[in-house]
């Protein structure tokens, strides 16, 4: 058929597919090559990072090296270094010959001889050991004895050995020795070697010490790396293996390859952002954090988030894509990562943004509406305590009943032994109940304490009838920031009628009472008192650039417009004085946050007069609607709706709960649960469909996610606007981002216990009472006083700053501190004063602390300085007559101008005093602290008026730097110690004597 030429060739059988096959095979090959390339290069971008890092870092080090080498050279040329070097050279020179001798003896004599002896000895010993084994396994006594004879024969065998001479001369000697002799020889040589080596060490001791001294000198003076270290790093870079660098933590299944690209993170050189061209290579900006959170133990993503495993791209690694639940924190929120493990802290050292966020949460009253674990713990604890008490009472009842039954059984049972057992059981129950009684009492005390501590965020609104001007109220509720910009009372989005209703309810449900009428005081004096007594630690006055004072409490610029003068006098004089409330017993009324400054009535009147002059001439519209009962009825609903009772005490709403969501775990709430509402799409498009985006926008404008929504007024978002600054928003966002459910096991978390728990308890109290408004407690604290022009510009007033409390726990005795905190006047009768620093215009106020808080605060200060509670006073060497006399002389000498500044109790002299009285030293201070204080006050209280360098070192004692009396010059002890002892045994008579001497 194929021969038929007319038939065209069959396309099926003749068509060639070679080209198809070739092309498709080539494509297949290409796709395979692509797959390999994709796998090897594209999916491993870190390779290029590493290649670049290697090159850049080497370049960087090479540039750094000459600089460091020059520094090293400079140190080497310094006289101190030269001196030590010379010392070293001489120390080494002295022993050089001896050392060489020892080395020769050991190396050429003892060791060769020992080796030779051992070799011969070991041959014999192996033979003996093998025969011993045969003895041990043999059961035939005859054979055993035959073998024993064999051993004896070996022991007796004389071996010829050639041993090098032990003196290192190189010669040898031929000896004939038996097993025993060989053994002795060998052991003897071992001892000889040890002795020689010990001798060598001894001889070198001095040289080594000097060398260490020299090296320490170098490392102390050199800032940065030495040239040898740099060379080491360069060499390391030369052999730098390209590959994934990872940290793998098995117990939390964490794999972090961050360092595959962030290669400079842990380098010993500080690499700034642009040092290696790209910021990716910079070293960790806060290496001190890595010291306490070793990446080998904590990884990277545990703090920073991100996808530690991913190495394919920046987006993947940073986890900044839709489906990664833990995207890398942005730099401004990086401290959010601290919170998950440090959730129990209110102050995390080093995390200032986070701390600010927590403080804002506290001091902006967020917790009024939003529960957050740890905030407002008192009210929750109160509930628990009450629950405990109920349980204990029930136990007690049950025990009593069981006891009666047991007694009954004991009385009636015929069996003697059984009866005794019943009685014993009854007795046991009775004792148990006694213990329970004690426990219940403790709880009752605790309950009373807690009841005093529980305090809503805002002021009680039960007293507004006495306190405020009626017409002022509606305007304030409508927009508090109009009246008082920056007020903590946020702006609610209220309708006018709601404002009227709420005002009416509050007005009509406020307490009625009588106020004592006060005459007007002196406004000028009031102003001075207001500005210097301490009011401005919390309050502020003036607006805009003229504003002075703290932000903790209200700005009082227009307080005269709103507040009743008589009430103001009462409030300033004693904030704890309340108008009787028929519904709540006085002891259960929360104590005010505002402390008493122990002012006299006259002073109170002066301040009140000054404050009541702080007003504008704004007209207030008529507010008679506030007396209409139906308005009030509607107001109750509005108050409930807006959750006013979350922050304020309001009659009839004492038991009202919070209206907001619990924010304890807000950061790990699934993103879909955050209601972006109509903004969802925009957020997704613009890339802020994240927790951060939500928090920031919500905080900036709480109504943001209502925008564009068609809603009834009451269905709209209720969260009011706090008009936060952008740094405040960022701090709160950081805090909320960190508020996550941690996935880390307990050992990773910071669980404060004992002292550390006391520290955190203390921080709560301090934050809540704004101790930092006046005192510096942490370095970096800026108190309100420190910002006031008077204290900043005038060097005299600078000394009027309240004392720093950096090391308060080490300074004072805990019992004294508790006393002082309870009553800072340190006197029940003379309360118009400071107990310690009477020269200060500012006054340590009396806070309404509960016993629990006092105890916690004391523990806080002690724990921060690792001081034990209770304090056991150190035993002090008693002061001999001559000691006393020398002390007295020193005290009055020109070198120790103590009494120039320290108070003496004589009013005429105390006018210029700027330091406390020595009389209270013994019960207040700790001697060791006092001693250290005298030597170097600046390292305890930077900026203190107490001068440094009063003493100079003389051998191992400290003596006064200046001209001292002859008798003191003969004293051989430590002057500072003597003064401390003298001070701690100071009494009134001694003080008088001192003054007489002066």
């Amino acid at each position, binding site marked *: 058929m194929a021969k038929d030429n007319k*038939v065209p060739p*069959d396309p099926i059988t003749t068509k060639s597919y070679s080209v198809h*096959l070739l092309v498709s095979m080539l494509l297949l090959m290409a*796709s395979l090559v*692509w797959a390999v390339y994709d796998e090897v290069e594209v999916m491993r971008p870190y390779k290029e990072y590493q290649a670049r890092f290697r090159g850049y870092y080497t370049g960087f080090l090479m540039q750094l090296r000459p600089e460091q080498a020059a520094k090293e050279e400079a140190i080497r040329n310094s006289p101190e270094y030269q001196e030590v070097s010379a010392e070293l050279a001489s120390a080494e020179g002295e022993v050089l010959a001896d050392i060489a001798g020892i080395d020769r003896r050991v190396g050429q004599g003892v060791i060769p001889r020992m080796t030779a002896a051992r070799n011969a000895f070991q041959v014999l010993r192996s033979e003996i050991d093998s025969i011993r084994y045969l003895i041990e396994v043999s059961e035939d006594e005859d054979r055993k004895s035959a073998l024993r004879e064999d051993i004896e024969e070996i022991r007796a065998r004389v071996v010829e050995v050639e041993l090098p001479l032990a003196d290192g001369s190189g010669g040898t000697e031929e000896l004939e020795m038996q097993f025993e002799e060989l053994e002795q020889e060998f052991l003897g040589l071992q001892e000889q070697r040890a002795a020689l080596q010990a001798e060598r060490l001894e001889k070198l001791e001095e040289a080594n010490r000097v060398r260490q001294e020299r090296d320490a000198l170098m490392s102390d003076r050199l800032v940065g790396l030495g040239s040898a270290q740099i060379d080491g790093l360069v060499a390391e870079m030369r052999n730098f293996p390209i590959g994934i660098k990872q940290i793998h933590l098995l117990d939390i299944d964490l794999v972090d390859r961050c360092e595959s690209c962030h290669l400079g993170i842990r380098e010993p050189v500080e690499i700034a952002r642009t040092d290696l061209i790209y910021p990716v290579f910079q070293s960790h900006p806060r290496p001190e954090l890595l010291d306490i959170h070793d990446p080998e133990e904590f990884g990277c993503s545990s703090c920073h988030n991100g996808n530690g495993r991913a190495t394919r791209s920046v987006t993947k690694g940073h986890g900044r894509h839709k489906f*990664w*639940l833990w995207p890398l924190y942005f730099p401004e929120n990086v401290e959010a990562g601290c919170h998950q493990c440090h959730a129990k802290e209110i102050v995390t050292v080093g995390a200032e943004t986070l701390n600010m966020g927590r403080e804002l949460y506290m001091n902006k009253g967020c917790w009024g509406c939003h529960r957050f674990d740890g905030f407002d713990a008192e009210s929750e604890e109160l509930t628990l305590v009450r629950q405990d008490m109920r349980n204990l009472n029930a136990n007690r009842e049950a025990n009593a009943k069981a006891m009666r039954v047991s007694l009954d059984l004991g009385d009636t049972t015929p069996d003697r032994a059984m009866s005794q057992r019943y009685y014993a059981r009854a007795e046991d129950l009775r004792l148990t109940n006694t213990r329970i009684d004690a426990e219940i009492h403790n709880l009752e005390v605790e309950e009373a304490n807690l009841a005093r501590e529980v305090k809503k965020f805002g002021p009680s609104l039960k007293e507004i009838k006495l306190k405020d001007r009626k017409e002022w109220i509606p305007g304030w509720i409508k927009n508090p920031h109009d009246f008082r910009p920056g007020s903590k009372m946020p702006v609610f989005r209220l309708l006018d009628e709601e404002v009227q209703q709420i005002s009416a309810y509050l007005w009509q449900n406020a307490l009625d009472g009588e106020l004592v009428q006060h005459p007007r005081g002196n406004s000028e004096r009031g102003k001075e008192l207001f500005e210097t007594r301490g009011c401005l630690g919390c309050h502020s006055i003036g607006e805009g650039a003229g504003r002075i004072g703290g932000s903790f409490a209200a700005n009082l610029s227009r307080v005269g417009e709103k507040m009743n003068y008589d009430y103001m006098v009462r409030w300033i004089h004693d904030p704890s004085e309340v108008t009787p409330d028929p519904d709540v017993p006085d002891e259960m009324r929360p104590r005010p946050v505002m402390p008493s400054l122990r002012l006299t009535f006259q002073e109170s009147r002066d301040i009140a007069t000054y404050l009541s002059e702080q007003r504008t001439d704004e007209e207030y519209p008529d507010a008679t609607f506030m007396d209409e009962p139906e308005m009030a009825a509607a107001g109750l609903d509005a108050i409930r709706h807006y959750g006013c009772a979350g922050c304020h005490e309001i009659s009839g709403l004492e038991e009202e709960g919070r209206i907001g969501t619990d924010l304890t775990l807000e950061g790990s709430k*699934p993103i879909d649960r955050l209601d972006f509402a*109509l903004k969802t*799409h925009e957020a997704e498009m613009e890339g802020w469909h994240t927790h951060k985006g939500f928090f920031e926008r919500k905080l900036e404008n709480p109504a943001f996610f209502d925008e564009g929504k068609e809603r009834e007024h009451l269905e709209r978002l209720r969260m009011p606007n706090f008009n936060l600054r952008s740094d405040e928003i960022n701090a709160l966002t950081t805090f909320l981002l960190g508020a996550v459910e941690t996935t880390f096991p307990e050992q990773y978390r910071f669980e404060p216990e004992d002292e550390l728990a006391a520290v955190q308890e203390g921080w709560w109290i301090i934050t809540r009472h704004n101790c930092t408004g006046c005192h510096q407690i942490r370095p970096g604290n800026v108190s309100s006083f420190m910002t006031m022009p008077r204290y900043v510009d005038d060097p005299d007033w600078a000394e009027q700053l309240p004392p720093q409390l950096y090391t308060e726990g080490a300074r004072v005795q805990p019992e004294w501190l508790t006393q002082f905190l309870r009553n800072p006047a340190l006197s029940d009768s003379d309360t118009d004063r400071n107990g310690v620093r009477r020269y200060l215009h500012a006054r340590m106020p009396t806070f309404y602390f509960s016993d629990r808080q006092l105890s916690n605060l004391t523990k806080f200060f002690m724990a921060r300085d690792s001081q034990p509670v209770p304090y056991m006073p150190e035993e002090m060497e008693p002061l001999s007559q001559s000691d006393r006399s020398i002390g007295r002389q020193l005290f009055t000498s020109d070198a120790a101008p103590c009494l120039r500044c320290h108070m003496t109790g004589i009013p005429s002299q105390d006018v210029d005093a700027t330091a406390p009285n020595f009389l209270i030293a013994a019960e207040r201070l700790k001697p060791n602290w006092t001693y250290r204080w005298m030597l170097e006050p600046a390292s305890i209280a930077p900026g203190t008026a107490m001068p440094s360098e009063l003493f100079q070192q003389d051998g191992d004692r400290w003596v006064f730097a200046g001209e001292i009396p002859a008798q003191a010059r003969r004293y051989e002890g430590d002057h500072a110690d003597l003064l401390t002892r003298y001070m701690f045994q100071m009494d009134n008579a001694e003080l008088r004597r001192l003054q007489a001497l002066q």
Partner: protein
Amino acid sequence: MDWHQLWTIVSLPDNIPIVGMLFIIPFFTWYGLRQAFANDRLAEKLSNDKELARTHHRKAHPFRKGWAREVSVWPYLLRMEFLAAVIVTIILMVWSITLDAPLEEPANPSLTMNPSKAPWYFLGLQEMLVYFDPWIAGVLMPTLIIVGLIVIPYIDENPLGNGYYTYKQRRFAIWTFIFGFIILWSTMIVIGTLIRGPGWMWFWPGMTWDHNRLIFEINRDLHEIVGITSQPWIGIFGGLVVGGFATVSGYACHRLITATEFSRKILDRMSLLQYAILQALLIVMLALPLKIAARLLFRIKYVWVTPWFNV
């Protein structure tokens, strides 16, 4: 027009097959029918020309006398298979290198996805959930689909069109299959994938998938529209309606089956059982679009409400 949204849906890696389906299924439908029409033309030519019919090789493909009627598998078939395998491999490789398989956040039972969708090939069933109770959409219908597919060879008594594309000789069968496969199955998958957004709401392509979208819809049962309020009358009424529908559509199908002389001839070849099964399947198949229309156009939820089940 929200192009971004459209792109988001279309470019979702898991939706690639659906997007592919939009092109592939029409293509192959066209491709198959083109050959069917060619064969039909041939058949017509042959039935008009008895002589030719006897000698013709009877394929639309070219054929010359002298060409082998059969060819060796090796190499003629195997090389094609090999080529196909290579091309499929290339496609798969490139697809795999360029597009990543989706991986979302770890499973979280407390966080419902909105919309939470089944794999794409089940989206037709999920879409049916809108129109039917789960037991129909999720159990009865799939079962019927499988059973229906299995019985096709046993109820199709048309001896023509065995092993070659044809349209004219199998009009009814092809229309039925295209109706079932393309119109019902594939379209519903496409709707389920591209149209159904959050809350399983209907979003036209280009509409933003807004989670907050609210639609006012009141779906009523048929008996409520008619005004029957109490059992057992509701059940009886529903049963009557369903029965009525079955009767009417059965009649319509019968008319369709017996529309041409040829189809009547085929019917003659069928047993009663075959016919009954065919009718039952056709009725159910017709019920589906009808219910969809009733739901989408007239907002009717159930037609038949009984204490035990609702249809």
